[in-house]
């Protein structure tokens, strides 16, 4: 995982509540065996017309004014539904580094953090302000400071967002969690020695 300490980028908003992972990436794109190339499937059914190819001119991500936006501002409860990690892979592939919402579904948040896609939780007023800003001026940029856990709006107001210490450490240092778990091998062995094995699948 790459280190992530700052994000500076323009915003685009999809002011829809409960955007589920089937919208972020429809299931028919899950037949892959790697992570590459999923960016073009992000929001596929909203992004393209019925033929699946012609960009839907109504959809905000097809508006050239918002090309290159790296911060997605979304409605409440972003990322609900399936556990597919293809969702953050697709968002990263589409050029996003952070998603801003009032809250995130648990599994999506976990998946996002493990891939260096930052879920930024803000209050409803800030969310509405960002919706309006993105609407009024597509060149609106925000900055995110991972260390300080702040999102700074164009007017200079810094909004603090929650981030657990361990995820923060991993993001700032570009390390993944597996290394930490692998180093606990002795403790895991001790646990296994103390506790009976519940089921043996190979039996």
């Amino acid at each position, binding site marked *: 995982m790459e280190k992530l300490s700052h994000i500076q980028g323009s915003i685009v908003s999809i002011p829809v509540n409960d955007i589920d992972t089937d919208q972020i990436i429809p299931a028919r794109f899950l*037949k892959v065996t790697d*992570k590459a190339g999923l960016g073009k499937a992000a929001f596929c059914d909203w992004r393209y017309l019925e033929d699946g190819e012609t960009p839907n001119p109504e959809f905000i991500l097809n508006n050239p004014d918002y090309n290159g936006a790296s911060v997605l501002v979304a409605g409440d409860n972003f990322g609900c539904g399936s556990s597919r990690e293809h969702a953050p892979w697709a968002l990263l592939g589409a050029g996003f580094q952070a998603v801003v919402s009032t809250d995130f579904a648990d599994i999506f948040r976990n998946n996002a953090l493990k891939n260096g896609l930052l879920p930024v939780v803000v209050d409803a007023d800030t969310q509405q302000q960002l919706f309006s800003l993105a609407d009024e001026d597509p060149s609106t940029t925000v900055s995110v400071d991972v260390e300080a856990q702040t999102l700074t709006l164009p007017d200079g107001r810094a909004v603090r967002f929650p981030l657990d210490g361990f995820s923060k450490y991993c993001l700032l240092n570009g390390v993944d969690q597996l290394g930490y778990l692998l180093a606990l091998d002795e403790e895991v062995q001790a646990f296994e020695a103390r506790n009976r094995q*519940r089921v043996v699948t190979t039996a």
Partner: protein
Amino acid sequence: MRDNGKPRTLFEKVWNAHTVREQNDDTPAVLYIDLHLVHEVTSPQAFSMLRERSLAVRRPDQTIGTMDHSTPTTPRNKLGIIPVADAMAAKQLDVFSKNCEDFGIPMYALGDEHQGIVHVIGPEKGLTQPGMTIVCGDSHTSTHGAFGALAFGIGTSEVGHVLATQTLLQNKPQTMAVNVEGRLSDGVTAKDIILAIIAKIGIGGGTGYVFEYRGEAIRSLSMEGRMTVCNMSIEGGARAGMVAPDDTTFEYIQGRKHAPSGVDWDAAVARWRDLPTDDGAEFDQEITIRADELTPMITYGTNPGMGMPVTAAVPKPEDETDVNKKIALDKALTYMDLAPGQQLLGKAIDVVFIGSCTNSRISDLRLAADFVKGRKVADKVRMMVVPGSQQVKQQAESEGLDEVFRQAGAEWREAGCSMCIAMNGDQLQPGQYAVSTSNRNFEGRQGKGGRTFLASPLTAAASAIAGVVTDPRTMMSAQ
């Protein structure tokens, strides 16, 4: 099993018993995983990661694989083989076979007599047991909580963590008691309970919580009914839902392939009896619904929280005071092509899908078969019945249910996820309406442009016969 005399919840007991390292300010808890279920769709990148780092699967003997999501459910050919027409799906299945073989993981391949939906086969094989921690790269892993296990869905990175270390980093969730008091009336099922709960709390209402379903209505459900309820915990935002184990649980497990036997059985039951939440234990949240007031439920919108009694009218966006919710409802009704205030009863439908890890077990099929027996599926309706596993399929066939369905004009298919996720070619056409016993009605979930009404197997069967959305109770009294 009180800890220093402090009463504990079922969740706390299972959590504490699996903590390798406690949570502190810097790191989440490290949780030991007893059973890891893997399938073809969310595992390939995890296996690749193991290969890149030259890691082994730490406990293949606590891991099991099955093919379910992208597998066809079309009939077998003359050689008894289920052909895979989709090249990408075929490749994914091949990669999965190779991964399981290379890493020593037992796996049920397409067509195997034990293959099936991952959440159907765990309980069926007796692998799912009270007090265990169970994970899978699939959000409906919550199903296994019906046994008093702590079971939840994980992402592919976490699949890799569990494969490599048999542990997971987890922040401790909060607990919510979900009390379902009173008894269900005729025609109302476990599916209606969970649809009503989600309609009440909303699809984000359980975020950060583990549910414990309690109360008379839950206690009187069969294990299969409890699985239906726990299955959709994630649709309320909760990663896990649990039911305290009792005699119903033990009866279900006893004699299954991986269940303890002999003296081990007695010892296991003794341990399991200590699991239920102690009197006086505190939950962080509590909600209550009355089972006796419930009626058959149906969803009208594009998330499982948009549900109502089947006899109700679709809500009107203008009655919604919250701006974001109003927009969401508007958008949902546009997608569903429904008018505000419209009745769903009598709405013509195109497809009925009986299947998925929510409602594809033998009791679901019996319920639906009983209903369609001696009747005919309406002319313009396609009814698909997809058993959850090959074992369920065999059992149903031995009871003649396949014939009942066929004679009614329904399709009897091979086991798998099928039209629940529409990855395998079983899908709605744009604009079609389905009454489905699955768990998600998101836009396009059952096929691009398809429109889903989630309901119980009874409501689905009744609607298949009538050709329109139907309250099953009206047809039951006529029987």
